[in-house]
């Protein structure tokens, strides 16, 4: 069964890059443009894996993780954060919030798919 990846990023470029790599690897991709949109999309459509940016308007990536973990229907959904932060504290914060893993931008499509596979059955 095709796995669905929800990508949440305010950058169209990033969304397109993720889409290209993931669709190529056989995933179904749905997109959201910020944290609020992301949580709403998750509620409406569900997802097997969530990939979220950290810096976004309206609701940032930490908010997304917290929202997912607090949602009884989706709290076991893996969330990968997409980040260029070299700030280890930020990564730690994402992990504390419940992030399953992370993808470092700029990502290599192969590494991206590796990371998704590592958290998605």
């Amino acid at each position, binding site marked *: 069964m*095709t796995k669905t990846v929800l990508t949440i990023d*305010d*950058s169209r470029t990033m969304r397109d890059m993720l889409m290209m790599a993931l669709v190529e690897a056989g995933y179904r991709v749905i997109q959201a443009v910020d944290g609020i949109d992301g949580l709403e999309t998750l509620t409406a459509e569900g997802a097997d894996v969530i990939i979220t940016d950290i810096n976004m308007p309206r609701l940032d990536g930490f908010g997304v993780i917290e929202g997912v973990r607090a949602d009884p229907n989706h*709290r*076991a959904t893996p*969330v990968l954060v997409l980040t260029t932060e070299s700030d280890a504290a930020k990564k730690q914060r994402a992990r504390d919030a419940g992030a399953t893993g992370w993808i470092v931008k700029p990502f290599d*499509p192969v590494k991206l798919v590796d990371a998704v596979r590592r958290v998605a059955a």
Partner: protein
Amino acid sequence: MRDAVDPFEAIKVVFFQECDELLGDLEAGLLAIESGAADGETVNAVFRAVHSVKGGAGAFGLEALVRFAHVFETLLDEIRSGRKPCDDLTVKTLLRASDVLADHVAAARGQAAPVDEARSAGLVVELEMLTHGETSAPAAETSMTVEAAVEDEFGFRPVAFSFPGLGDDPAVEAAPAGEGWRVVFRPHGQMYVNANESGLLLREMSRLGETTVSLDISAVPDLSDLVAEEGYLAWTVDLVTDAVEAAIRDVFEFVESDCDLSVTPLPAGPARVTVEPAPAPAEEFDVAALLMRAQAEVEAPVTAATPTPDPLPIAKVAPDASGVNAAVEASIAKAAAAPPANNVTPASPAATAAPLAPAAVTIRVDLDRVDRLINVVGELVIQQAMVAQRVVESGLARSSGISVGLEDLELLTREIQDSVMAIRAQPVKSVFQRMPRLAREVGEMTGKRVRLITAGEDTEVDKTVVERLAEPITHMLRNAIDHGLETPSERIAAGKPAEGTVRLAALHRSGRIVIEISDDGRGINRERVRAIAVSRGLIAEDAVLTDDEVDNLIFLPGFSTAEVVSDVSGRGVGMDVVRRSIQALGGRITIASNPGKGSTFTLSLPLTLAVLDGMVVTAAEQTLVAPLTAIVESLTPRPQDIHHVGGHDAVIRFRDEFVPLIDVALGMGFREVPILPETGVAVVIETESGQRAALLFDAIQGQRQVVIKSLETNYQQVDGVAAATILGDGRVALILDCDSIVASSRKKTAIRPELVRPDVHRPDFKFAS
């Protein structure tokens, strides 16, 4: 992935489009901060803009851009978090950095010359100084590369845990020999809370080589003591592989801090020992079953609650044994399909691999399609007018059903036309956005302090008009700063603030767009302008001109040339060029100046190039349309105002000057013999170069808005004709190109401008607009 050039390139195009938007946001945000109108969210948005540029640039390997964006972003992050103040100096630096960032983007796009490296490097130093405090940043940090930053990202230095007790398991001791690693992995409860799964990690390891897995369930407590969220299981995996330790740690990258993990080299041995499980169960053990049990433990530990002192037996997974791998996949898939605690809404069956686009409020449409629509609507307008005319001709009462229905139709048609035109309409923002940078740069070059205020960026106008506005506005803004504003010391001496203000505003006024560029500078030095005009022979020495007329002299061709630019204490750099490009858009430009207080340039432009305000005239029974923007005045010639200058050429007195009188019907070959001027109507026009002429027609029918139809695309270019239109009665009418009519009439008659000058001794120059 990158082999697929096309989608990659397509995303690159998207990236650069996005960069344009982000750079716009960046500048707008910084300007808001500068003006004190910013809140915390503005700083965040500014940070995000640079961050997104960097993120995308990284994806495309645009290293120079990434490097610059990284330094820029670092400072913004400090400001965002409140660790660094955002004072005036910092904002100025950030604004300049945004300019350089735009240069980097343009260079990466291949649109512009390479970035000025010295400028870029200088700003990097400035940004770093601001980031690291006032002192110069250490060399190491200054030369920080992105690669280093990325390295940091991956640079988790895991501390290896060792669990002596685990290694004592007999099963583990009998691990496969050879090159490889023994991985002992004991997840904490938090790992599961964060939605990681041991089964998947084991599967990942099996991709690296042949694995021998043993599961230790000794820590599983009695059911009554069992905490559902806790991790009780531990795995020992012997992995025969060529992979380096880092590759194995990569598998555990996400869970390092949520598990106990040790990776140690496998003890070498002469031969591999196939391990027989001590309490060998009757049924076959395979990895699939193992994983399912593991899965079950994760999801609902109750099922695995029976404490077993001995580790579960071992299964082997050969990486190439596709059957086994398939079983693993299947078991994982099964396990994940209906997990009790993992209520992931399954993807709907209808959903295919086709990507689902995010909900969008805009669509992209090919411009050709819009233009086709506009064209058809133009036809509709014409057709509607034709039907209306027929109805009038048929003598139907105005109250008749048809007439009333037709009126409604007319309203609808007009609404459709407006709506369609609105599709092509774009805010002038795209042009205005470029101006703050220009203002800064011109200010820097000329040593002026300038504050640019823009207003009405959201005013919409036809796309073509927007595109062609950039050049004249750029020109005028540059002039306003270079020639309009005084230097800070001059301003202070004049009792003004040191910083000059230039205001750029757009607004709609009576169906046209008006753009105003005003400054609070010194205004036009009329003495100087007048002197230059006299010295260039544009006006007579004793000409009597109003202030307004003097100001408008600067638009005359030949008024300014390069060598006077720096001398003119006023403005006037190529203003004739500006005026020409505005006129080419069917617009007009005027100036109002107040000495010592400043000047205001006002541009007035049509909202669209698809419709034209025209004066419908008759010449030798042909119906023609003269663009209203070119017309100065229309008059009935009196015999005493007409002077013949040999042959058929005539001039007519208009106000205080003589202008050539051109019989249009004759010039266009509609008839052979000229009419008597006094039997017709003279329409005085002004060409784009500011020359005047009177066009002689038989009669004026009235003013009308007409839909422009290109003659070139439908037929061919004809001298003297700009385009065509279809009138309400269905007739095709030619729209005159006044400039070309005047030019060809000069060619034919060889009238040089000086011959047209009146003999009367009041060699006066009049400029009315």
